[in-house]
C-alpha cells in the first residue's frame, strides 16, 4: 500500500516538473497559431524585408525591416557598454577584489539587475534623455542612442554575473602554472585565464544580448517610436518589442494587424531562443573543456 502511494507521489512530481516545458511549448504554439494567418496576406519575405510599417493605413503595409533594424541597432549599441563594463567588472571581482570587497560588490551587481525595467525607462525618459538632448544639442532626446545607453546598463549585471561564474570555473592550476613560468598577474589574466574562460564569457555576452533585445518597457518609453529605418544613432526608432507593446492594445482581435504583431513576437521569440540555445551549447563545451562536465 505504501509502495503504491510512493509511486503515485513520484508520478505527481514528474508531471509537475514538466510544467516549464509545457509552458514553453504552449508559448510556441500560441505564437505560431496567432502569427500564421498574416502570412496568407503577406509573404514571409515581404514581411521580413518590407521597408514600411503602416499597419493601420489603407491599404496597410506590414514590412518589419525598420523594427528589426531598430532592435539590432539598440542591441549592438548596448553591447558597446555592457561587454567591456560587464566583463571588466567580472575580472575585477575575480582577480582584484578581496573577500570584503566581494561581499559588497557582488550584491551591488545583483541589486542593479533587480531594478525594474519600468524604472529604467522612467529614468531614461526624465533624466538621461533631456541630459543628452542638451549636451549634444539633439533635435529629440528619445532616440536610439539613449535607448542603447539604458539597455547597456541593464544588460551589464547579466554579463558580469555570468562571466564571473565562468571565471570561477578556471582551475587554480592554470594560474599557478602561469606564475611558475614567470608571468605577472596581468599576463596571466590576459593570456591564460581569459582564453580559458573565453567560451564562458561569450555565453555571458550572448545572454546579455538576449536580455537587451527582449527588453520591452524601456524601449517603449525611451526609443522614440518612429517606425522608419534608422540612419543615425540620434534617430528615434521603434524596436520590435516596443511595436508589440504599443500597438497590441489598439489592434482589433483577429485583424491582420493583430496577427502581424504576433508574427513579430514569434520572430523575437525565435531570436532569443536561438541565443539561449547557442549559450547552452557553448557553455556545455566550455565545461567539457575544463573537465567540469556534469
Amino acid at each position, binding site marked *: 500500500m505504501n509502495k503504491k502511494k*510512493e509511486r503515485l507521489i513520484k508520478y505527481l512530481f514528474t508531471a509537475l516538473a514538466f510544467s*516549464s516545458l509545457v509552458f514553453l511549448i504552449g508559448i510556441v504554439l500560441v505564437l505560431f497559431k*496567432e502569427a500564421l494567418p498574416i502570412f496568407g496576406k503577406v509573404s514571409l519575405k515581404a514581411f521580413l524585408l518590407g521597408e514600411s510599417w503602416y499597419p493601420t493605413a489603407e491599404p496597410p503595409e506590414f514590412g518589419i525591416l525598420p523594427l528589426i533594424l531598430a532592435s539590432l541597432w539598440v542591441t549592438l549599441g548596448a553591447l558597446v557598454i555592457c561587454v567591456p563594463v560587464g566583463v571588466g567588472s567580472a575580472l575585477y571581482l575575480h582577480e582584484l577584489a578581496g573577500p570584503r570587497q566581494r561581499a559588497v560588490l557582488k550584491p551591488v551587481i545583483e541589486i542593479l539587475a533587480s*531594478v525594474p525595467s519600468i524604472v529604467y525607462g522612467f529614468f531614461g525618459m526624465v533624466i538621461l534623455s533631456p541630459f543628452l538632448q542638451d549636451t549634444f544639442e539633439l533635435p529629440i532626446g528619445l532616440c536610439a542612442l539613449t535607448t542603447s545607453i539604458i539597455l547597456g546598463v541593464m544588460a551589464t549585471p547579466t554579463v558580469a554575473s555570468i562571466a564571473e561564474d565562468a571565471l570561477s570555473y578556471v582551475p587554480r592550476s592554470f594560474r599557478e602554472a602561469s606564475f611558475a613560468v614567470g608571468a605577472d598577474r596581468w599576463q596571466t589574466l590576459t593570456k591564460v585565464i581569459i582564453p580559458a574562460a573565453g567560451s564562458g564569457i561569450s555565453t555571458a555576452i550572448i545572454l546579455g544580448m538576449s536580455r537587451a533585445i527582449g527588453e*520591452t*518597457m524601456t524601449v517603449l*518609453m525611451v526609443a522614440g517610436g518612429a517606425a522608419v529605418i534608422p540612419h543615425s544613432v540620434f534617430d528615434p526608432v521603434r524596436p520590435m518589442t516596443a511595436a508589440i507593446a504599443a500597438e497590441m492594445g489598439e489592434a482589433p482581435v483577429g485583424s491582420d494587424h493583430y496577427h502581424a504583431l504576433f508574427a513579430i513576437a514569434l520572430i523575437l521569440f525565435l531570436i532569443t531562443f536561438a541565443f539561449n540555445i547557442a549559450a547552452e551549447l557553448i557553455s556545455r563545451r566550455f565545461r567539457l573543456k575544463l573537465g567540469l562536465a556534469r
Partner: protein
Amino acid sequence: MKRRDIVQKLGFSALFACMAANVLFLGGIIFFIAARGLGSINWAFLTQAPRDSMTAGGVAPAIVGTFYLTLGAIIFALPLGVACAIYLTEYSPKGWIVNVLRISINNLAGVPSVVFGLFGLTVFVKYMGFGISIVSGSLTLGILALPVIISASQEALVAVPQSIREASLALGASQWETIRKVVLPAALPGILTGVILSVGRVAGETAPILFTAAAFYVRGYPDSPFSEVMALPYHIYALMTEGTHPEEQTAIAYGSSLLLLGLVLSVSMLAIYIRARQRKTYNA
C-alpha cells in the same frame, strides 16, 4: 618601472573603472529618482486614491493591485517550482530528462516579457475566459517567476547534505517521508530566498500585465479576482504616456518610481542577506 608593470597597472585601473561604473549606475539611478521622488511621498500619497484626473491624490489602489498580482503569481508558481526542483534533485531522473528540463527552464527564463504578455492574453484572457483580470495577470506573472523559483529551490535542495537523507532512509522512512520531513525543512530558508527574489521580479514587471490585468484607472479597490486592477509599474507608464497634465503627472510618477524602486530593492536585499547567511551556515 618596467614596461610590463606599467601595462599591468593600467590594465588593473581599467578593471577598477568598470567595477566603479556599476556602483555609479546604481547610485545614480537611486540618487536621481530619490532626489525628486521623496518630495511626492507622504502618508496621503500611500493611502489615497488618485483624484482630479490623475493630477492629485495618491497611488493606494496601485499598491493594492501590485500586492494582489504578486501574491497570485507566487501562489501559482511556488508549488509548481518547488515540485520541479524536488523532482530534479530528489528523484534523480534519467540524464536526458534532466537535460530537456534544464534547457526548457533556461529558455523560459530567457523569453522576452512582452511575449509572456501575448501568451497570457491568448490563453488566460481569451481562451479560458478570465478576461483582463487579477487572475490572468497573476498566472502570466507566475509563469515568468517559475524559473527563478526553480533554480533557487534547486540550489537549496542540493545544499542539504546527502548524509541526512541517508540517515532518514536508514531509519526506515520512505522516500516521500524523507523529502517531506527531513529535506524540505532543511531547504526551507533557501526556498524562501527564491520566493523573495521572485516577488521582487514580479512586482516590478510591466509588459506581462499590459494586456492581461492592468488598467490606467479603476474606481475603488478590486472586489474580485476577476476585476481589472491598477498596478504600480503600469501606473508609472500610464502617467508618463497618457493623460493631459504632464507636469503634475510626472511628479506623481517620480513618487511611484521611488516607491517601486524602494520596494523591489529592499526585497532583493532581504533575499541576498538571507542567502548569504544560509551559505555561511553550510560552509561552517
